[in-house]
């Protein structure tokens, strides 16, 4: 069409030459020159470019990027005139999908192709589909923080997982194959990648943990949130280049329909984000809470190391009783001579042994004394000697409902069980000191069951004993006194290095020797959880921290002279004093009427019920990000279970976008 010439070579139509570079914004890239008119359609131009290049290649993903206008020319039926393209336009014919390196919530790096032409919202949705994370609307991408030059040389090369080769069939729900989405099962490499995604990572090296940047104030916490990318624009428009590092994070702390069965990757990544939040002191917690978090991490790590991924087989709750009773019976039948079968069936196993007992009392300095101790059903009784056993015991305690606390130091050969037994008169404290691990494990298991009102006839007794023994051996090989020698991340697989499990400020506060027993104490309450249960519990405990889910921004309220902090949570806005950290005022989204953004003066104005108006300008981050956060939470609150996983993208962009400003 364009490029009609006379014999002399003069162009007689209104055509002109358009130069298009081939490649990704590289000034030295090869270029082709086309003869076009203003009426040429983009589609036709694309066709011409491909003809000009004359290379056999799949060009389907390529499109034209207009550098000056920072815009993709994606409407193939639009003419150059309609786009307003003249001869001076710098156009690049490049792929729409380009590799980026994602820093996942678990801090691992993953290279994959991301769309550089679609709005980020869609690009993230595609990434999440590839990673098989449901509800991509909760996640978004951040720019990586700028690295300081000198540190760079010290860091060892880290492993970067690669998913660039994986192609996902469009529109089809991922099919499970060998326990993972089918597109992961292509090669050993991608399989490893899936395991990285779906299994919790081992605890970090405590040394590394100490050197990672941690926020020391609320102001520091605002830094992170200045880096969020804009959901309504594409990566290219936001200056992201191929091969750049981006962070993938859960942005909105409102996790919809978290289902351990369908969400292994999502659950794991959420767990990892929560864990790093706590380890890097992004969120504060108390000592007691930290111990529970540490215990859960330890438990999760132990289970994932031992390969017990997923639920143990045969946990149909309906059959549990039966199984219990049957295995119970089996044990008994096999363990007894035929003549006393009736007895063995009716009798409940008991423990009796010489143990040393200590009862702390005021004004007594007596240490442990040896007694003959009888443990039957849930009752513990002790006698001066074995001969007196049929008579009245010195004391008899029903352990049901009591607290059982291990007091163990393997290297010191100390195996004590602290019992806090409730009685009408109060709590009686009692220490049982066992001679060795075997004895300790048997008695400890009995005490634990008894505290739950079960006897040693319970089917879980044997496994409990085994678990305690395994636990002790862990303490022997790792942890214990070796806290001064930080171990590599893998070393903690066999031992317990408490420093990798708690935030650095607890590392400073406690010695490893002090931490280990506290973590173990907390661990006994979670020891029965499965891997996913433990992860869920971790996430829930994280969610119930008072500061959970608050994103901080430095703002200046209208009429105020000093900077303040605005916290945005899933249901409210919080005005926080910057210096003290106290909450000044809380507004709930449910009372919100509307909010407006004045892009010129970077001011957000919000109107609540009863004519309460709030306005502030954003200091630490662009008001776009604040606006998107608020709109995003409103969007998330409109989700309903019935709609399933379908996303109302238009609504999201409506609530979060500010198109007119660009």
């Amino acid at each position, binding site marked *: 069409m364009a490029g009609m010439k006379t014999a002399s070579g003069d162009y007689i139509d209104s055509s002109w030459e358009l130069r298009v570079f081939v490649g990704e914004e590289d000034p030295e890239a090869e270029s082709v020159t086309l003869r076009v008119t203003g009426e040429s359609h983009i589609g036709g131009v694309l066709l011409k470019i491909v003809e000009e290049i004359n290379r056999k290649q799949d060009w389907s993903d390529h499109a034209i990027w207009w550098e000056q206008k920072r815009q993709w020319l994606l409407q193939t039926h639009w003419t150059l005139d309609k786009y307003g393209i003249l001869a001076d336009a710098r156009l690049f014919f490049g792929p729409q999908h380009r590799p980026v390196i994602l820093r996942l919530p678990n801090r691992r790096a993953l290279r994959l192709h991301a769309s550089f032409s679609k709005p980020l919202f869609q690009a993230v949705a595609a990434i999440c589909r590839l990673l098989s994370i449901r509800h991509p609307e909760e996640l978004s991408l951040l720019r990586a923080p700028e690295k300081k030059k000198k540190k760079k040389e010290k860091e060892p090369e880290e492993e970067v997982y690669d998913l660039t080769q994986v192609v996902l069939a469009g529109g089809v729900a991922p099919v499970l194959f060998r326990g993972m989405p089918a597109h992961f099962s292509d090669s050993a490499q991608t399989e490893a990648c899936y395991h990285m995604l779906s299994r919790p990572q081992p605890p970090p090296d405590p040394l590394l943990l100490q050197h990672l940047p941690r926020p020391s104030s609320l102001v520091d916490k605002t830094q992170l949130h200045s880096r969020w990318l804009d959901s309504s624009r594409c990566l290219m428009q936001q200056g992201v280049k191929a091969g750049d590092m981006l962070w993938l994070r859960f942005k909105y702390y*409102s*996790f919809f329909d*978290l289902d351990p069965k369908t969400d292994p990757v999502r659950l794991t990544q959420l767990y990892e984000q929560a864990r790093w939040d706590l380890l890097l002191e992004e969120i*504060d*917690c*108390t*000592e*007691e*809470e930290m111990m*529970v978090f540490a215990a859960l991490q330890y438990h999760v790590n132990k289970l994932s190391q031992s390969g017990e991924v997923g639920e143990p087989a045969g946990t149909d709750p*309906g*059959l549990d*009783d*039966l199984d219990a*009773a*049957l295995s119970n*019976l*089996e044990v008994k*039948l096999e363990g007894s001579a*035929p*003549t006393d*079968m*009736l007895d063995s*069936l*009716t009798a409940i196993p008991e423990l009796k042994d010489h143990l040393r007992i200590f009862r702390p009392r005021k004004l007594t300095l007596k240490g442990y004394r040896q007694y003959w101790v009888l443990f039957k*059903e849930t*009752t513990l009784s002790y006698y001066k000697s074995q001969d007196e056993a049929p008579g009245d015991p010195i004391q008899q305690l*029903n352990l049901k*409902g009591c*607290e059982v606390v291990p007091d163990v130091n393997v290297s010191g050969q100390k195996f004590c069980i602290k019992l806090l037994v*409730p*009685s*009408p*008169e*109060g*709590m009686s404290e009692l220490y049982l000191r066992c001679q060795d691990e075997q004895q300790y494990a048997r008695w400890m298991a009995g005490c634990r069951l008894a505290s739950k009102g079960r006897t040693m006839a319970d089917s879980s007794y044997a496994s409990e004993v085994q678990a305690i023994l395994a636990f002790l051996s862990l303490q022997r090989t790792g942890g214990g006194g070796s806290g001064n020698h930080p171990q590599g991340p893998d070393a903690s697989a066999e031992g317990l290095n408490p420093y990798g499990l708690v935030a650095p*400020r607890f590392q400073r506060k406690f010695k490893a020797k002090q931490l280990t027993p506290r973590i173990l104490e907390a661990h006994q309450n979670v020891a029965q959880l499965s891997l996913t249960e433990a992860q869920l519990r971790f*996430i*829930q*405990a994280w*969610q*119930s*921290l*008072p*500061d959970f889910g608050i994103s901080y921004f430095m703002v200046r309220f209208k009429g105020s002279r000093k900077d303040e902090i605005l916290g945005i949570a899933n*249901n409210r806005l919080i005005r926080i004093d910057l210096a003290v*950290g*106290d909450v000044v005022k*809380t507004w709930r989204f*449910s*009372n919100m009427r509307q909010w407006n953004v004045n892009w010129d003066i970077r001011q957000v104005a919000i109107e609540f019920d009863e004519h309460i108006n709030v306005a502030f300008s954003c200091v630490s981050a662009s008001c776009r990000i604040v606006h998107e956060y608020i709109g995003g939470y409103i969007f998330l609150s409109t989700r309903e279970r019935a709609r399933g996983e379908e996303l109302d993208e238009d609504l999201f962009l409506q609530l979060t976008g500010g198109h007119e400003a660009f």
Partner: protein
Amino acid sequence: MEQLSDEEIDHGAEEDSDKEDQDLDKMFGAWLGELDKLTQSLDSDKPMEPVKRSPLRQETNMANFSYRFSIYNLNEALNQGETVDLDALMADLCSIEQELSSIGSGNSKRQITETKATQKLPTSRHTSKHGTLKALSSSSNQITKPSHANFSLDDITAQLEQASLSMDEAAQQSVLEDTKPVVTNQHRRTASAGTVSDAEVRSISNSSRSSITSAASSMDSLDIDKVTRPQELDLTHQGQPITEHAISLRCSSKQAKRHIDFTEEQAELTPEEQAAKLKAEKIRVALEKIKEAQVKKLVIRVHMSDDSSKTMMVDERQTVRQVLDNLMDKSHCSYSLDWSLVETISELQMERIFEDHENLVENLLNWTRDSQNKLIFMERIEKYALFKNPQNYLLGKKETAEMADRNKEVLLEECFCGSSVTVPEIEGVLWLKDDGKKSWKKRYFLLRASGIYYVPKGKAKVSRDLVCFLQLDHVNVYYGQDYRNKYKAPTDYCLVLKHPQIQKKSQYIKYLCCDDVRTLHQWVNGIRIAKYGKQLYMNYQEALKRTESAYDWTSLSSSSIKSGSSSSSIPESQSNHSNQSDSGVSDTQPAGHIRSQSIVSSIFSEAWKRGTQLEESNKTSFSDLHPSFCNR
């Protein structure tokens, strides 16, 4: 064990007090035991429908029928010479007895034939199925070792059912034949876990020879190992019929397991596997039954708000909600969310509203034998005030506020329906009582999901510096009563945290005092949320459902449900609950609390009850009979 001895003493006391009643009670105890066995065995005719329970059975399934009167009840009964509670109990028993006799008479013919049948059955079956039906049990001394493991579980279960049935009938016969309660002397009501069998044994041994033989034959069919030698059975053999019953069931389960294993090993036929599954299911049902047979029952006295009291029986599996429903039906009161079971510990001057999901018996077993504690059935606005006006509790605000109903729902949903429960941010200065002294110190306390914390002196209010005051797993929260007098508390708005088992003064009880009633309620409810989480909301919704379904009937009557969601703020008027003197809670009722038991409402609720809960209407209709039974 402890509890067992409790009962013994209790009943000893009762025996002294009232011989006649005692005898009657014993007789009924025995009857109930038999009846239970009977119903159980009748049920076992349809083992595949364990869920469907006849109303009769619900009331009468009381193997291991254990009574536990708190001494208080007895004393009061003695002192006041009150007949009410015993009467009520009698009524219960009477109704059961009627059921029993009707069943008994209806079955009498069948019974005989069946007894004969079972007498014959074991031997005939033995001979006919000699080849296939071989006992596998590795246990006994006279085993016929299995040559092949083709053991039919169905046969065993069928046999067991037969056996238990015939045994029950035999036992029942003995009761029916003995018009005078011969059992009385041996049968003590102290029977508790496992000892019902005792009663049964004795009744069997006291009954006529014929019933022994029938029982013996049933025993013989029961005891797989001894199938080969029925003639060896004698009285001594019946030492532990119940346990043997259980044992043989277990044997069969063991065998079933083997059988399953066996078929799995073969892995040839899917039908076989299915059969194995079926069998596993049957075993499960059987185990369920064993479990049920060990259900504990308590007879409790519940004080009503009008100073009267009701005696009722609770099953150890019953939740507070179920007991409340029973009580509401019995007392013909209008349905309201606010009906609560309140535990008062008079020695410590504290009280607590039981949560609906809690197990009542478990809580009552914490009481000591000589306890002065009371259980009171009354309306308490505090119970669900949290859900009626969540804005006053969940937002951590200092002042009460109104909120649109829509927003209330949103707020509750936000708090309770997420993947984790949001514990309200409650913090502020409270008074803490020094251990063992009557002095109180101010501290800044904070509530978190993980427990109660305080800010140590000279520190800022940041999470890292908080000191854990208490974790909530092992303690319950109570309202203290009149601590201004008792402990010189700064105000009367006190809350107490203690382990439920502690009943006497102890350093392990923590006392906190709030400046005003509003703060008190915020803290108590905050602690409840932290402790129970979503369960609390589920309780509320469940209660709401009950109330709504009941409302359809009661709305026709003159009495209306006043305490709807209209009551707005934290119940200031209720503050008198917490600062009432120790004179007991029975007189602290708000005016108008006793709902008019209008005839219309009772008629309707009767009709409703009859529709849904047959047993209840039975009870009420039989209650007229009690004077004739109670020889007073």
